[in-house]
């Protein structure tokens, strides 16, 4: 049947985009290892990696730089980008709002507030944890406050997409105001630390950073992909979703809890990295359309690829490199506008 074959061809084209993104991530990851003060070529990095995997290390210094300094940053850039863009794709589709992303839920401003409190109050606030972990635990806890408020609200009142976005934005303003208040009272040293959290950075990443966010992201990502049909049906609106067998209230609460959890798991390590979660899914949508089965993996892979590239640029910018959050917005927004103007294909938005 010609019609069905046309549809299958369209699906194949979407998977080709997804596979290209995956391959580009691998190539870019090795390329990213060659970027930095210590001069190494793409092939040197490839050789160092192979030597490390086979246990036949000929240059311990290069091995240390590539495997223990640059590789964890590259891997974490992929995880963070993938999580933010996947979260953005789910939020936008489910709430039927092109401006929704994990940050409009107040997740990142919650993380910033938690970290800021930890920075200002120091070790005394949580004696059980050592320095970096106090900030991480506080950031994680505070970033889940908005979703907790939405869940509490849902017991009393009817939850709608608009209410969720408004609650998230209100929480974002409250958190930002308290952070401003803390910054007014903070010393110069703590002010600098809060600032670095605010702009988002991957520079402090080590292999120890990765296991917890990777585990949480993988579990949440698999669950979200498993729910792709429900997320897709939610695009039809709550009444239509209900009539197609999806409970809209339950679905919204489950998915935003999962998105908040996985976003909290990464932003508590990196601080606020903007742009990827909002615009990453829109760029993926231009190539694979809005159908969730393909949009979710495409957004995740494109987000990972984009943040990896942004991190490469961030590391060679300025004398000591620039925060990746700044670079992702500076490069990403013009790129997005250019794609919007030049793309001559079916519309992905109304």
């Amino acid at each position, binding site marked *: 049947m010609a019609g*069905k074959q046309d*549809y299958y061809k369209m699906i194949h084209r979407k998977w080709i985009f997804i596979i290209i993104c995956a391959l580009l991530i691998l190539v870019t990851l090795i390329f990213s290892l060659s970027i930095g003060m210590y001069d190494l070529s793409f092939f040197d990095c490839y050789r160092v990696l192979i030597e490390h995997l086979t246990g036949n290390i000929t240059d311990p210094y290069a091995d240390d730089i590539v495997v223990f300094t640059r590789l964890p940053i590259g891997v974490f850039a992929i995880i963070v980008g993938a999580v933010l863009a996947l979260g953005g794709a789910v939020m936008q589709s489910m709430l039927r709002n092109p401006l929704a992303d994990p940050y409009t839920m107040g997740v990142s401003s919650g993380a910033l507030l938690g970290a800021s409190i930890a920075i200002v109050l120091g070790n005394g606030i949580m004696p059980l944890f050592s320095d970096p972990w106090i900030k991480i635990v506080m950031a994680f806890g505070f970033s889940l406050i908005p979703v907790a408020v939405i869940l509490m609200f849902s017991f009393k009142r009817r939850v709608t997409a608009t209410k969720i976005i408004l609650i998230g934005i209100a929480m974002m303003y409250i958190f930002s105001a308290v952070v401003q208040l803390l910054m007014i009272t903070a010393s110069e040293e703590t002010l600098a630390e809060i600032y670095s959290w605010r702009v988002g950075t991957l520079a402090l990443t080590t292999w120890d950073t990765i296991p917890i966010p990777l585990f949480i992201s993988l579990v949440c990502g698999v669950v979200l992909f498993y729910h792709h049909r429900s997320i897709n049906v939610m695009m039809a609106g709550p009444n239509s979703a209900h*009539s197609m067998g999806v409970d809209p209230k339950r679905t919204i609460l489950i998915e935003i809890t999962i998105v908040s959890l996985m976003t909290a798991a990464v932003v508590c390590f990196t601080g606020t990295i903007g742009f990827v979660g909002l615009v990453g899914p829109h760029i993926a949508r231009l190539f694979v359309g809005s159908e969730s089965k393909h949009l979710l993996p495409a957004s995740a892979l494109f987000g990972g690829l984009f943040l990896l590239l942004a991190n490469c640029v961030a590391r060679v910018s300025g004398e000591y490199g620039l925060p990746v959050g700044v670079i992702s917005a500076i490069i990403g927004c013009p790129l997005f506008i250019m794609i919007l103007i030049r793309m001559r294909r079916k519309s*992905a*938005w109304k």
Partner: protein
Amino acid sequence: MRLVIDGIEFGYSSTPVLKDITLDANGPQLLSIIGPNGVGKSTLIHCINRILSPNKGTVMIDGETVNDISLKDLAKKVGYVPYSANDTFPLSVVDTVLMGRHPHATYKSLDKDLDIVYSTLRLLDIEDLAMRNFDELSAGQHQKVMLARGLVQEPEILLLDEPTSNLDIKHQMEVTRLLRDLSQEKNILVIMISHDLNIAAKYSDTMIMLHGGSIYAIGTPSEVITKENIKAVYDVESEVIESHGRPHLIMLDSDFDDVEHTLPADTYAVKEKR
């Protein structure tokens, strides 16, 4: 299939919308719900597919209370075509219609689901639109795509909220005729809300006229569309003539009484029947 509504009442806060609605609809037919704005037509169909839960009374499908049926199983029995489609992120026509297969879908069912989608698109004569984006279509094509999405649920009861709104006369007739034919071909009970009384009367098997949240009249189009009922429910003067065995409503307005003499002689045929 048999739909039994037994004394349902529904209200928002202290404002009652539906009052003691009782109905027994059996077998394949096109049933139209008519009535003025805000009378509870959409609320009634939302109570049938459990989007809203009545404060009192029960809705039963084939002897089973809808509250006792899981949402997914209910979606296999009752399809719904909304008043307007949400297309913030427009999908292709195939993907839009494929959504309707959600209650039946499994991880291995795509090929079978696509067969059902394409055969429904063929039935509605819109197969050529299959790969187009939903937002590129005209209002009439939108309506047919939404109808296709409801049909691929393979429901026993199909609810439609003003399916002919925004359509020109030709498309209004085409869609309503299609609904009547589908009710017989697919053996389903089609319940539609309509504001066009003449088109509803022309094609419906049964009509329900709502007034003040209650059923004011129920029966064949000839029993429901009478000038007395129209006056009582819509507060509009009218004449009802018969056309091809169906009632046809003509609105009267006293503002135009003085222009009668300017109309051609055969225009008075209707008035002379008074």
